[in-house]
């Protein structure tokens, strides 16, 4: 959680440590280290009797005296001693590592990496600061004034710790992405930055566009010429890309777009989260043409779906969307290292023959896609209604045929869907429905609830909807949808598809993600 400003403001980071795989966000704070005076007040609602606050005197808030446990640590003084008050962050990090008995070498490596671009002096001072904090942590443990129970797990050593941005970025690389044109916009810029950092290693052309319209039109040009382009943006930027999306639909030029949602309308809350742009993505672009929308639930999904997006875009010659959100892209946790051994960049481009027709009418609607300069043919694409050669036409018969051809691809797409994932008992009475980034929070909530009559149906492909959806819903006595928006956009899509109204809607649109406690509290009253 952070505010839309560069320095200052009241920001907090939440770190969860657990011996089980828990990747969700919780309300309750176990350990709090306030680094300024406003912090405690700001987090007020998340402090319980069990919370331990490590704080220097100045940052403690007397109103909380009896509401939690307070341990004084003179972070600033220790830091100043080493040379600069700014090091107090590192003291705090050391303290936590000590408390959790993190190997001191691992911790030191971490510090070195974090300050890699700084002067040696600064690195050493930070190492020193970390050490001081670490010692306090281990000291507290030894004195048994604090007990912390986390089992170390060897598997985790083989896991990676990344955030959603990195998962998607690596998926793009796996999918053969070699062209990115985007205009910066929180919280989507991370993917652009990630790919820029990898651009030399992987031969990726990264270009910051002058606006989002240029971004999508460049990405389309890149695909036309044979590259695999993408754009990353957020709702407001994407709202400018609609005409380009429509062009992709008409010219059957593939394109991949990542949209990291944030609360709207308009500028809204630039650094917070929401699932409010599903409808926008679903219906962007004028006219009628098929599309695919993926919404990753966890890091593995982020990787898999970004990878898949490029292959599917190329295969069906359509726009494919990866719909994430601020909570997803900015949340770090550990996950098994991605297995890249079986991933293929599927090639669909054909070498053209002399009389090549870009829009040849075929049985299934797909015309082999050529690119300029590869083969003897000529590749003409047209934003106007066109004939098989890609030439402008006003013939009604050709229009109908081409319209049918484009829409027919939906049948192929329907044969190649990712099914929603059922988590929990097959013989559920209550069915929770969710999509995208709420996966982990809801999973953990159900674990907490421990009910054997309640399951979660999670969608990572939100469009087109899987035909089994209706059967899953019909089996339930009570259907409940959980969405991070105010109008239940996915619930409406389900109703449009299945005709079934979901019984109960749990909606949150404060700008923050759901927490486990919230979901549990909500569900307890319902099931």
């Amino acid at each position, binding site marked *: 959680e952070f505010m839309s400003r560069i320095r200052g403001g009241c920001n907090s980071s939440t770190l969860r440590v657990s011996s089980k795989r828990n990747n969700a966000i919780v309300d309750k704070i176990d350990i709090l280290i306030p680094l300024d005076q406003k912090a405690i007040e700001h987090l007020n609602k998340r402090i319980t009797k069990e919370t331990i606050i490590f704080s220097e005197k100045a940052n403690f808030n007397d109103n909380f005296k009896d509401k939690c446990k307070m341990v004084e640590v003179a972070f600033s003084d220790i830091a100043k001693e080493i040379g600069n008050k700014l090091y107090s962050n590192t003291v705090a990090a050391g303290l936590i590592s000590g408390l959790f008995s993190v190997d001191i070498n691992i911790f030191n490596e971490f510090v070195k990496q974090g300050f890699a671009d700084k002067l040696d002096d600064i690195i050493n001072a930070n190492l020193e600061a970390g050490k001081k904090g670490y010692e306090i942590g281990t000291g507290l443990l030894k004195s048994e004034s604090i007990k912390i129970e986390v089992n170390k797990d060897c598997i985790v050593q083989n896991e990676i710790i990344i955030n959603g941005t990195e998962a998607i970025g*690596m998926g793009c690389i796996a999918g053969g992405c070699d062209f990115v044109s985007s205009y910066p916009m929180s919280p989507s810029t991370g993917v652009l930055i990630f790919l820029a950092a990898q651009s030399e290693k992987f031969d990726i052309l990264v270009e910051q566009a002058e606006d989002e319209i240029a971004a999508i039109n460049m990405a389309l040009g890149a695909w036309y*010429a044979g590259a695999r382009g993408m754009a990353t943006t957020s709702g407001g930027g994407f709202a400018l890309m609609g005409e380009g999306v429509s062009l992709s639909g008409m010219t059957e030029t593939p394109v991949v777009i990542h949209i990291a949602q944030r609360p709207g309308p308009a500028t809204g809350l630039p650094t917070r989260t929401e699932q409010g742009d599903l409808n926008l993505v679903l219906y962007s672009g004028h006219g009628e043409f098929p599309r695919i929308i993926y919404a990753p639930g966890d890091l593995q999904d982020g990787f898999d779906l970004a990878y898949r997006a490029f292959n599917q875009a190329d295969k069906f010659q359509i726009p494919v969307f990866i719909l994430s959100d601020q909570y997803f892209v900015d949340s770090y946790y550990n996950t098994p290292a991605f297995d890249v051994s079986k991933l293929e960049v599927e090639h669909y481009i054909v070498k053209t023959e002399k009389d090549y027709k870009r829009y040849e009418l075929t049985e299934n609607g797909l015309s082999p896609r050529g690119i300029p300069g590869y083969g003897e043919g000529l590749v003409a694409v047209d934003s106007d209604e066109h004939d098989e050669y890609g030439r*402008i036409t006003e013939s009604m018969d050709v229009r109908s045929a081409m319209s049918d051809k484009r829409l027919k691809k939906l049948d192929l797409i329907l044969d190649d869907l990712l099914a929603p994932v059922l988590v929990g008992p097959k013989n559920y009475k209550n069915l929770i429905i969710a999509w995208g980034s709420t996966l982990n929070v809801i999973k953990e909530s159900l674990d907490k609830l421990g009910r054997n009559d309640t399951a979660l149906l999670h969608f990572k492909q939100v469009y087109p909807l899987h035909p089994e959806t209706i059967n899953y819903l019909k089996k339930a006595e009570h259907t409940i949808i959980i969405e991070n928006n105010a109008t239940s956009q996915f619930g409406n899509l389900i109703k449009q598809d299945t005709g079934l109204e979901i019984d109960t809607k749990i909606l949150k649109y404060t700008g923050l993600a759901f927490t486990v406690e919230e979901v549990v509290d909500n569900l307890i009253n319902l099931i």
Partner: protein
Amino acid sequence: MDSKVYDIENCDIAWCPGCGNFNILKTVKMALAELEIKPQDLVISSGIGQAPKTPQYMNINYYNGLHGRSLSPAVAIKAVNPELTVVVQGGDGCNYGEGGNHFIHNIRRNPNITHLVHNNMVYGLTKGQASPTTQKGFKTPVQVAGVILEPFNPIAVAIALDASFVARAFSGDTDQTKEIIKKAINHKGYALVDIFQPCVTFNKVNTYKWFKDNTYYLEDSYDPADRFEAFKKAIETDKFPLGVIYKSVEKPSFEENLVVYKNNPEPLVFRNENRRKKLEELVNSKK
């Protein structure tokens, strides 16, 4: 090469009889043929309007995209496959109006493409509204009291942004226009050719005669390397100069500046390296 290679059989051309676009079409074909550019190696990117239909009447690769957005795909096409010759073609509205932002920022990029703007000082396809280059006082069904905006000066703006090649031509003069277009295509870097083109249907003011009377060719002695002189020429309005008005000092093109081509000239689209190993390394670096 015979310019017939660019011809299309039974081509049904939708322009009005007498339209200046016919001659531009012919001239472009001639220029391309003289430069021996194979249809397969050429892509014309265009937008929407009368002018952007030009590639539809040629036997070439084309990308006929959105109104105002012809530069963006062109730059990307050239960047991912620098072996292609990439030309952008369209009208004054498409390129300076709807597409104005791409115009100014792609000059900054300096991609190695040729930008041909058919400047008829009017919106042709949408039936006669003012375009950015329409002269003051011109009456239209929308500008009922006459245009009140200062006409957009593409030449001056391009020079202000230090575009690497800036020229103006008149569609009525095949020979000279052909030579200018050839120079533009041969130029390494972004090359603008603003081509005066009479619209016989919706622009009854800026006619063939008007363009003839209101233009002159730069003398042979004129030095397009002098930016101030060029700027002076650019803002002349009693008579508009024709020819190559400005050429900047030589500078690398966008593609030449790209990291992906620093150590490897192979077009991005033909590279086929398997990324698995490197990707595995990247994944493992996050442990």
